[in-house]
């Protein structure tokens, strides 16, 4: 168990309660944060980038990098009712989730609007680890009403977790003596002896590439870091921050809160939140389940079809269509949607975007009006967009087992 005091910079400080908490890996990460480019995530001091966004991005795609997931929220849900409670909460069928497997899930309010997405680790018959971007203890407590044989434990600071992503990620694990993790298939969990304790490794990540997430007790955090960076020295290992993650996840087509979706419990304007069906996550919604939260509302939307759909776009030119609106005509008279995330993708060599588009307009022409700046002068460009079905980025090595070393 962690002591929250040691997570803060200075407990004698009268503003201690206001200051950002420090990750279990902070000491090492601070030393490498050459630009002091800190922002925050869930109250933790968190690197936006360490040295250079593009450099970190290319490490993810060409070598490997580490991304601190200590601030990611973690909850242990344990007890004979744990499976039933979580299964009622999320839209997927958790009865299909085997022990030592991970699954990507979404959960909704009663109206089928998405509260958050995350992953559920089945650690044992009746022991689950839920991870998600934003705190959701209150929702878990509400969800637990009527499930008495159950404990919900806030576990965020009780684990030190680091995401290791990129083509050389397994090579680094192997060099650390964790070659056994090579048998892990995507979404598998393995437990291995490590230092004076144990490490849990899941073949999961948020980059769409080969990668792992590493979980240890907080007292092993710095040991883990040192082993990784010693073994990774020849494999191009580099810490990366929020900015590079955001590039990698967009190429992989993964959604981000406050980019693609607004968390339902924090949405004020009517239906300014989204349903999983609108977010192109219909594959996460298992209507064969007799009951899950939001099922009735989602079924209704499923029958009539969502009005808007999150869509992958290829956009002509090379100007990122950030915050742009979409139109059905080149003259930009008839608005049909808006871009949620956009970038020039160095790996795909394409101008890509995720966008919410009126379903009725998907079969017609799609145009976007891009504003960009060149040495303080603002310019406007209208560019044609084409819908892309497949993920922008999804290399074979992300799926093969045993994994490649490069």
């Amino acid at each position, binding site marked *: 168990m962690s002591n929250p005091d040691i997570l803060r910079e200075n407990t004698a400080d009268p503003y201690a309660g206001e200051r950002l908490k420090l990750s279990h890996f902070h000491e090492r990460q601070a030393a490498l944060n050459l630009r002091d480019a800190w922002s925050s995530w869930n109250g933790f001091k968190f690197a936006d980038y360490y040295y250079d966004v593009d450099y970190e991005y290319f490490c993810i795609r060409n070598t490997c990098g580490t991304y601190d997931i200590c601030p990611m929220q973690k909850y242990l849900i344990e007890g004979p009712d744990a499976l*039933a*409670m979580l299964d*009622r*909460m999320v839209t997927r069928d958790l009865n299909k989730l085997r022990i030592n497997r991970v699954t990507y899930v979404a959960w909704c*309010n*009663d109206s089928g609007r998405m509260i958050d997405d995350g992953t559920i680790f089945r650690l044992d018959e009746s022991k689950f680890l839920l991870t998600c971007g934003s705190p959701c203890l209150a*929702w878990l407590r*509400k*969800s637990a*009403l*009527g*499930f008495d044989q159950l404990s919900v434990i806030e576990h965020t600071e009780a684990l030190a977790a680091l995401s290791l992503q990129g083509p050389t990620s397994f090579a680094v694990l192997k060099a650390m003596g964790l070659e056994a993790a090579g048998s892990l298939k995507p979404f598998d969990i393995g437990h291995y002896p490590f230092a004076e304790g144990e490490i849990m490794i899941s073949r999961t990540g948020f980059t769409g590439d080969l990668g792992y997430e590493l979980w240890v007790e907080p007292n092993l955090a710095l040991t883990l870091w040192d082993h990784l960076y010693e073994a990774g020295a020849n494999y191009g290992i580099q810490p990366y921050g929020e900015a590079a993650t955001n590039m990698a996840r967009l190429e992989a087509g993964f959604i981000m809160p406050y980019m693609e979706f607004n968390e339902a419990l924090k949405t004020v304007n009517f239906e300014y939140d989204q349903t999983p069906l609108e977010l192109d996550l219909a594959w996460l919604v298992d*209507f*064969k389940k*007799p*009951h899950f*939260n*939001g*099922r*009735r509302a989602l*079924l209704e939307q499923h029958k009539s079809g969502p009005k808007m759909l999150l869509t992958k776009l290829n956009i002509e030119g090379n100007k990122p269509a950030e915050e742009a609106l979409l139109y059905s005509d080149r003259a930009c008279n008839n608005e049909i949607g808006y871009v949620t995330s956009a970038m020039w993708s160095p790996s795909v060599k394409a101008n890509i975007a995720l966008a919410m588009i009126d379903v009725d307009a998907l079969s017609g022409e799609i145009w976007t009006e891009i504003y960009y700046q060149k040495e303080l002068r603002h310019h406007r460009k209208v560019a044609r967009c084409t819908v892309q079905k497949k993920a922008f980025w999804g290399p074979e090595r992300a799926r093969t087992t045993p994994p490649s070393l490069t």
Partner: protein
Amino acid sequence: MSSTDTIIIGGGHNGLICATLLAKAGQKVVLVEAADTLGGLARDREFHPGFKASVAQTLYALPTSVIKALDLEQQGFIPSKETLTTTALSLTEPPITLAGARIVGACPTDAAAFANYKQQLATFSKALAPFWSKTMPRIGATGFQDLLTFGHLGLNMRTLGKADMLEFFRVATLPMRDLVDEHFSGESLKAALCWDGILGSQLAPRSPNQGVLTLLNRMAGQWEGEHSVPAGGMATFIGALIKAATAAGVTMRTGAPVKQITISGSEQGQRCSGVALENGEVLTSERVISSADPKTTFLNLVGPRHLEIEFSNRIRRLRSKGYVAKLHLALSGLPKFSGLDTPSGRLILAPSMDTIEFAWDAAKYGEIPDQPVMDVCLPTLTTPGDAPAGQHILSANVMYIPGELKEGWTDAARDNLTAQLITQLEDYAPGIKALVLGSELLTPEDLQQQFRVSGGHWHHIEPAIDQLLMMRPTYEAAQYATPIEGLYLCGSGSHPAGDISGNPGRNAAREILS
């Protein structure tokens, strides 16, 4: 698959009314009641050898339309031709007796104001009356029926005339105290006039949002809110309901507590499939209608795991704490109340609105008030057969008595309160203590345990503005249907609310048949 069309949970008046109306429409109906006798809080019980009484002591909110719909007069229910007087008793002022628009004993200015006050309330009550017997529109719904109901309400308000309409909107959510303070000066009169706005609820004269609406709801009954006891006593009302149910072909099973409402799940979703009794027996039916309170129905019988998360938490948060205790005294003779020839009608033992307010202040913190307030009735004056010849029963609604007493309810705590109440009665009716042969005190906790009502609340859930109309018991269950297909509500926790009005049971039956 099952030969039963509908299972009704609970054999109180609403369950019986709903069952009968469905059976009359041709459905095969089985009603299951946990207790050994039907009638719920209105059922007759012997509380002392030879003395019978029911928790519900008078009728006041029962609309004529319910009596007619069930042909209750053919089944032996004889509505009283006369209503009960209401007498405000005080140890310092002479008694004031109210009967309809008549008032005796008040000061001339109060007496002069009374007729106008009653007239205005009656006007408002009539404008609202149709809504107690209607299914409430769904919020956000644009269906024809929903719009019609909204339109009807708007029209009724408009036909009040501009002055009355504006006045209605002004007073509808006033605290009872503000309303009566505007019209009257006599302390005991004001306390007595507050009474029917707050009786059975968690609020006192100063509490906003509810009192006046409750009063207007009660005034929509057969006698414009006047209380009465039917010929033969409250038992004849329940007896007639049972006869009507029998005549309609309802199968009634007593001593059959439900353990669970069974839910079946498939790729088509969930639906209600029947009930499992505590004895292990399973009854199947495509439709189950529960007259149990919403918390019992959803949280205990269905279980939150079959419900949605926000919905089940709204049910959990429903306010359902009862604050009325029932006192029954078996008396060897007729007590003599100071200033009264006969203790007929209802006697309100609440000297002032402050007394009521202070009693509530104590109760809301889990304490017994120093001076509880009471609504006392001697049912044996109209139905002498409920007690041995020449002997009497005193039946009192005592407010405010917390169900969750700070130090916990024990036999000693009950005995102490009974003694305190008898001493208090002795002040109003010297010599009554010597007449007491036996007594029964039912705290809200006792009502919860003996009658399976969450919190021991008369109305199942508090009839406050946030739990009324299209919010009763909560949205998504306010039109008698529930989020579970095949499961309906028909009890006091549904629109329009509690008391013996039969409206929820009748409205639910009509909604199901429509």
